């Protein structure tokens, strides 16, 4: 594995929520329960899981858009969580985010040109004329014409808006981009265009990605390695080919088997994932997955399985795979 761009260790974020009337009780939502992963330089790291498993929280906590309670985030060796105001501002230039909903990610009253030059202005990059030229170049790079500069977001389609969102994330020449479900809100035909665009950008600019998605097919296409999250914890991590070939955690296996493969002759005994994700407020005792796991044993109901590293960057938290 190449030298790490980002190292995350033991990241934890609990939300306190008041519930109930008339007597409100404080409940704790364990959105992130100590997750660790590493993103190599120029690599794409997939973060996969069902809705509510904490993957978006993880992406935002890495960027400190949400302040994590505990843990360590190191960007090229620099501690992100300990950075002061000025250091954080400098780090923000290097770490950017692309959002899921292209209809919410652009200020409806801001012309595209302004939206793209503003980050450079705020960070004192270039003279005003250069900024406009650079913004136009960025638009060209994401496949939009110059005249988009003087238009407003609502004049564009979802896919075009997503391109603008990507261009905005690129204005400060970041090295790491957190892509939070960047294609989930788009039509299937547009999804592939945006994925191709992101892939092209990654190759040209040597970008690293944290690619958050619930779509295994997309992650498999885009990423080199991935982690599967379940209720705030990572249950399995490793390189994409190995995981898809031989998933170790029953949950990963179910996710893989549930994601369609374009091969009509392939017949698999579909293991259905039964039931809903349990609440992160009150996760099941022991292994969080035991309520839905076909292999659940006595011990799974009692103890959360320890993290078991398996070499080659693989690791799993499951009682079936104790060393």
């Amino acid at each position, binding site marked *: 594995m190449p030298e790490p761009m980002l190292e995350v260790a033991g990241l934890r974020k609990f939300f306190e929520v008041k519930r109930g009337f008339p007597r409100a009780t404080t409940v704790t939502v364990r959105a992130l329960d100590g997750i660790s992963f590493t993103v190599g330089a120029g690599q794409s790291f997939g973060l996969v899981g069902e809705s509510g498993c904490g993957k978006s929280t993880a992406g*935002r906590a890495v*960027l400190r*858009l949400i302040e994590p309670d505990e843990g360590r985030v190191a960007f090229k060796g620099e501690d992100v969580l300990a950075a002061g105001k000025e250091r*954080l*501002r400098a780090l*923000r*230039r290097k*770490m*950017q*985010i692309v*959002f*899921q*909903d292209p209809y*919410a*990610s*652009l*200020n*409806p*009253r*801001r*012309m595209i040109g302004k939206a793209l030059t*503003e*980050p450079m202005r*705020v*960070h004192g990059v270039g003279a005003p004329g250069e900024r406009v030229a650079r913004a136009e170049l960025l638009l060209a790079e994401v*496949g*939009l*014409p110059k005249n*988009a500069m003087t*238009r*407003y977001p*609502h*004049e*564009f*389609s979802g*896919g*075009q808006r997503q391109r603008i*969102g990507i261009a*905005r994330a690129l*204005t*400060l020449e970041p090295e790491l981009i957190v892509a939070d479900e960047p294609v989930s809100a788009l039509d299937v*035909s*547009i999804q592939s*265009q945006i994925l191709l665009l992101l892939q092209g950008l990654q190759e040209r600019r040597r970008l690293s990605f944290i690619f958050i998605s619930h779509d295994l097919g997309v992650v498999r296409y885009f990423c080199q390695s991935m982690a599967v999250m379940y209720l705030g914890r990572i249950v399995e991590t490793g390189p994409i080919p190995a995981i898809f070939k031989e998933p170790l955690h029953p949950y990963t296996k179910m996710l893989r088997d549930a994601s369609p493969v374009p091969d009509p002759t392939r017949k698999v005994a579909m293991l259905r994932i039964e039931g809903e994700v349990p609440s992160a407020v009150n996760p099941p005792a022991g292994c969080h997955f035991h309520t839905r796991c076909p292999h659940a044993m006595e011990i799974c109901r009692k103890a959360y399985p320890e993290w078991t590293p398996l070499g080659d960057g693989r690791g799993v938290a499951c009682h079936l795979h104790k060393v």
Partner: protein
Amino acid sequence: MTESIAAVPVERPAAAHWLLQLRRAFNANATSWVGLVVFLVIVALALLAPLIAPYDPLDQDIISRLEGPSAAHWFGTDSYGRDTLSRLLWGARLSLVIGSVSILSAMLIGGTIGIVSGYVGGKFDLVVMQAMDVLLSFPSLIMGLMVVAMLGPSMGNLIIAIALTAIAPFARIARAPTIAVKERDYIEACRALGYSDLRIMAVHILPNIMAEILVMGSLWLATAIRTEASLSFIGLGVRPPVATWGGMIREGFENILDSAWLSIFPSLAILLVVFSLNMLGDGLRDAIDPKLRGGE
């Protein structure tokens, strides 16, 4: 690429800028047009008072005191023989200036408090908004009365008093949409890009809630003019002999039985202004409300 750029409509946006949005809202509702035209006519008459007023508003003519409406004095004369029409026109200037200056300051101060409070949130928001609730619990007339009674009746104090009554409502009206807007992804994008909180509030939140504040402004301008008249009526307004509408009603009140026109004309003037502003504001609000929520 299948996503052709030619598919992008070329015509100008109708919703992008808040001014454009207001214009669209206007066209959607005829009553706002009526309100606006009537209000603009009143403003024009007030501005042109020195040119079109037939007499000096302070000129006394003892010979022709308490005369009814006639060709020489359209709206009659008061107990000092001053021309009511001229006093009405000059009084409009004062009422409009006091109303608009106080509402503009309330908009500025209250709007700032609301945006900051909504944006910062948490305990700060709680404390600030409770302070605003305390302000809000005083009826505006009582509040104005207290302030003017403490500071003394003068135009400046009147403006302060009226502005104070309007700060809390503006803080509230600015806070609610701020809370809605700050949760949107584009604000998070601003933070990810390292923008300062000040920039986020002034450049990215304010334009998105401006329409709501302006609608509120037109409604509260009517209230301010009414409050000014009420305070003048009970003798806490600008000192005589300067003409104000409220003051004119009070002076006319002394002769209400034999010279009712002295009170009726300024009352009608207040009615007309308040009515036109409310029509304007209501029309705007109805047109804007459902659309603003979508953020378009």
